[in-house]
């Protein structure tokens, strides 16, 4: 559904010629070592940055350079690497804000938000203030908020960062459940192990260029990929 043809920009070639397809109901991962250009790619896809060349298409709409709120309305939701919560609002209210996109009446949005919160296991915390949550819960909240907008594509920006192994495992389960509902997920991730059990398709970036695209298991054994992560032996 998302077809990024080719993107690069600036006098600094942060990203050079990335092609990416994200089919529905699947998880596609964009990985690479630090500085590979993942953040830039994510920014271009989510609408934060306008690519120098190339296009980002979603369901036949060209979305590169489109402002956030319109992108959300088209059915793309995202989370943030550094969690962006509605600090002083309660968990429930924060998710209601998301649900209001598709449910214009507050009562309907509230009902949907409650369902979403329960589904993500945040039920008991629904009246807590956003800023009082743990990092893991905040990330869960971000996902809940994003899901409340009933997206067809979910963009996750280094969602595993800062989680303990137990929290990470729980997150993996959560993502599995989300894919099962038919939502497409594009994950940008630094840590490879996390991605393996989940991803159907992996694209590896190094120094702005895609150096591998395909099955995650093959990626782990690919010499080019290993070199990118560990350096020349």
């Amino acid at each position, binding site marked *: 559904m998302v077809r990024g043809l080719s993107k690069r920009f600036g006098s600094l070639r942060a990203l050079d010629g990335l092609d990416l397809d994200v089919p529905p109901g699947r998880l596609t991962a964009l990985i690479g070592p630090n500085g590979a250009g993942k953040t830039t790619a994510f920014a271009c896809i989510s609408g934060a940055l306008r690519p120098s060349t190339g296009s980002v298409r979603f369901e036949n709409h060209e979305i590169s350079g489109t402002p956030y*709120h319109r992108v959300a309305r088209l059915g793309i*939701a*995202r989370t943030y690497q550094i969690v*962006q919560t*509605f600090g002083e609002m309660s968990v429930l209210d924060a998710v209601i804000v998301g649900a209001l996109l598709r449910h214009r009446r507050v009562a309907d949005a509230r009902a949907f938000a409650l369902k979403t919160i329960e589904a993500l296991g945040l039920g008991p915390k629904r009246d807590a203030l956003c800023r009082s949550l743990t990092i893991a819960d905040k990330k869960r909240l971000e996902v809940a*908020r*994003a899901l409340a907008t009933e997206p067809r594509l979910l963009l996750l920006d280094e969602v595993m960062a800062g989680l303990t192994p137990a929290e990470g495992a729980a997150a993996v389960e959560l993502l599995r459940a989300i894919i099962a509902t038919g939502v497409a997920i594009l994950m940008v991730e630094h840590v490879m192990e996390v991605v393996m059990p989940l991803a159907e398709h992996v694209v590896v970036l190094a120094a702005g260029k895609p150096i591998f695209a395909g099955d995650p298991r093959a990626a782990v054994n690919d010499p080019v990929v290993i070199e990118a992560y560990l350096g020349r032996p």
Partner: protein
Amino acid sequence: MSVRSHVAALAAVSAALIALALGYHNPFILDLVFTGLIFAVLGQSWNWISGYAGQISFGHALFFGCGAYAAALFAVHHGSPWLALVGGAVVAAVLAVLVGFPCFALRGHYFSIATIAVAAIAEITASNADVLGKANGFEMPILAPSLAALQFTDKGQYVLVALGLFVIAQLATVGLERSRLGYYLRAIRQNQEAAASVGIDARLAKLVTYAGCGALAALAGALYAQQTLYVGPEDTLGLPISISIALVGVVGGLSTVWGPALGAFVYVVLARYGGAMLGGSGRGLDLVLYGALILLIVSLQPDGLAGFARFVRRRGTAASS
């Protein structure tokens, strides 16, 4: 506070004021109450944009003056004052959109200064345009007292109409807080970027809010004109008016339903009573007191007087849970 408690408080206040308006015939007191209600509505309208929407306006007199001038113009040209209310509100809403559309893209203080600039342009224009009465403004013709003419001999009846507007403003605010727009505004204030990621068009939300608050302020302005029967540029469009409106909002507490009413109460008490008590030499003392009050409040509790109440209540519930 729940909707029920808001309505209860509103009913209580209304009952008290109705009793006052019908029973107590001291024109000085009734004048005070009228002014207080007008400022409560103005403060509430300011609260919508500066508190809920987070874009602080120091040029709110623009909308107040809009309504006042609408009333004056309609009166001078023998139109119905009720039409003037509607007309003023519509014009104010349109102005709000025109000003807000480009200016909401600006960072906070640039916007605040822009509001001052626009109000200043309006004041200068009104002072110099024949159509708008130039510096002397308009003296509105005195008509036979009636509801249709919106003029009364008994000050108490003005208070009743003002009370009606106040009730509308309060209910609208309660509604705003609980509406989709209210949620969106809160989200925008918390984190504008995250808000955008869930589909919130911040500019549109702010524009709608601004248009609404402009209309509300204009209604207050038109009503004020009907009572004083004189509309002049300095009294209605001047910077001191904008400052007074902002003052009411800040002292009372932003982003609360009852803050502006509290602020208006303090304002009226200090201004008229204080000034009247001390006579001519008291001029300015009311401002000194407000200023000191604002400084005190801002240093201790940025949410104004209503914020204190909320703070206490939260402490109370935390202690009991």
